[in-house]
């Protein structure tokens, strides 16, 4: 039941991503499942990720103003840095407590999930991981005889990053649930 809801959230994320207007929801569902699966496998046990990790250090900095900008965290590649928005993380932790979701999102797990999410994006920018991800999704851009050129699926990397964060941090539910709930709460607070 919970897995179905997480998948529904992932499908909605894809449906709201430009380039997927008019796509068959069943296809979006298949991509969402595959991307989640890929993200869960993309831990440090993953061979390519392990190689990248040895050569790349990503600096982490804490910032404020995330609630205003609508951001949990941001990854920038030049120079490699992850910005974690402390105010958003703190508000999300409060929300988890208010909703009684502590068994899904243990204390301190939101910040850890934000870091893991952006770390996954950093990995997904490396060519071998990208190629493997596209093959897994299996969306064809061009077919010449037996040769296939795999297409990029916009939004799928976001789902993979969330799935990685969930697996890496041992969360009971997808961080997408927290995203949706916090967006609704912030929107409600700003309107009242």
């Amino acid at each position, binding site marked *: 039941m919970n897995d179905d809801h997480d998948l529904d*959230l992932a499908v*909605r*994320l894809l*449906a*709201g*991503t*430009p*380039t997927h*207007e*008019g796509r068959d929801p069943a296809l979006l569902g298949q991509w969402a499942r595959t991307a989640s699966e890929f993200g869960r496998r993309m831990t440090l046990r993953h061979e390519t990720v392990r190689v990248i990790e040895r050569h790349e250090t990503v600096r982490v900095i804490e910032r404020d103003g995330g609630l205003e900008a*609508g*951001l*949990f*965290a*941001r*990854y*920038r*590649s*030049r120079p490699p840095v992850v910005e974690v928005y402390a105010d*958003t993380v703190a508000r999300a932790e409060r929300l988890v407590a208010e909703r009684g979701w502590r068994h899904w999102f243990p204390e301190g797990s939101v910040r850890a999930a*934000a870091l893991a*999410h*952006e770390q996954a*994006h950093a990995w997904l*920018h490396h060519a071998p991981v*990208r*190629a493997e991800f*596209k093959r897994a999704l299996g*969306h064809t*851009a*061009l077919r010449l005889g037996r040769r296939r*050129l795999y*297409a*990029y*699926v*916009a*939004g799928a*990397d*976001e789902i993979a*990053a969330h799935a990685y964060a969930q697996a890496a941090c041992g969360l009971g539910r997808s*961080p*997408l649930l927290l*995203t*949706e709930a*916090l*967006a609704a709460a*912030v929107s409600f607070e700003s309107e009242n």
Partner: protein
Amino acid sequence: MGVVILLVMAVGVAAMLTRKLPTAFALVLLAVVIAFLAGAPLTGKESVLDTVLQEGAPALAATMIAILLGSWLGKLLEETGIAGTLVRKIVEFGGDRPVFVALGVLAVSALVGTVTGSAPAAMLAGLIGIPAMIAVGIPKVTAAGTVLMGIAVGVPFELPVWQFFSTALDLPIDTVRGFMVKLFPFALLAAVAYVLVESRRRGVEHTWSLKTVRARPPRGDRRRRLGDAPWYALLTPAVPLVLALGLDVAIIPSLLGGVLYALVTTTRPREMNRRLLRTLYGGFEVAAPPITLFVAIGILLAAVELPGAVDALQPLVKAVSPQNTVLFILVFTLLVPLCLFRGPLNVFGLGAGIAGVLVATGIYPAVAVLGMTASYNQVFGVSDPTSTQTVWSAQYAGVSPHQVMLRTLPYVWAVAFGGLCVTAFTEL
């Protein structure tokens, strides 16, 4: 009297800058005041009512029709899914290499820029292009600037712009086309440099955003049911260009050719009439702001070309206008910022009036004024934080128009410098 006219123009610029008056209204008011100051009678020959208002208002009629047809074609590109398909294909092919996606969106924006201008052009390329670029990791300011720089690449081949310069400066289309072909490489080079340099400098960016999960999309939306346009329909933006540039067909029939091509390649015969009418009416809506502006510019041009205005302004303008080639390039390059913020060198504002003065007083040949104004137009179209396409692109990307101005200005300033060099060395 020349000084008074210049002071009145300065007041007009101030009114536009402070948004006290919409540009079109300010230009008409300016025209009427300038005409009275130039000693024009109320009615009769070279008068305020009969010459400035009656003859000036439809003076740029051919441009207005071209704008309308461009907007019509733009609506068709939107409704038939041609623009969306182009961007979608680019993302699918190059999405894992953000710089390829940005170059692809730049190319689509350039194609769109040859068809139509301002905010509708930015929307056509940017509605899918900007979020698609952001989704693949292009930073927001770079994404907004890419669409604008792309449109600016297309502007030298935007047929309504050719028509505008041809009518406003009384030049044959061939002459306008000749200069635009020389201006194009500068615009292209600067745009590609923008994408490559900014991508290298800023890298990629990804966010865990609160806006990630959206509400379920409404079912039954007509546009959502539309699939990809067929590959041969994707050639539509090139059709008017090939007709006008390659086959020397006049501008209005070239644009109509584009409309017909888009229609027959995407629409079933029984749906054609309804789609044509619907998109034409939509085109009127899109074209209303620029057409209003062109009515006002026509009126202003009629006022500054009155004999009294020419006599009053000629000595003053001549005294401050550089005749030396190097000085011409230097001075007019330094004056580039004056076409920003609806400034006095904005071609679609008071700049048109100043161009009219320069031509009417014979200070520069009309073709040199074309070079100057077309070069400034490249800056205005990208970096002016008050122009509709810049405001729309920046806001849609979630950044401020001023951020986009600061990021793009060095590149378009270089384009203007290139255009002014070509002008000075070939037309002065």
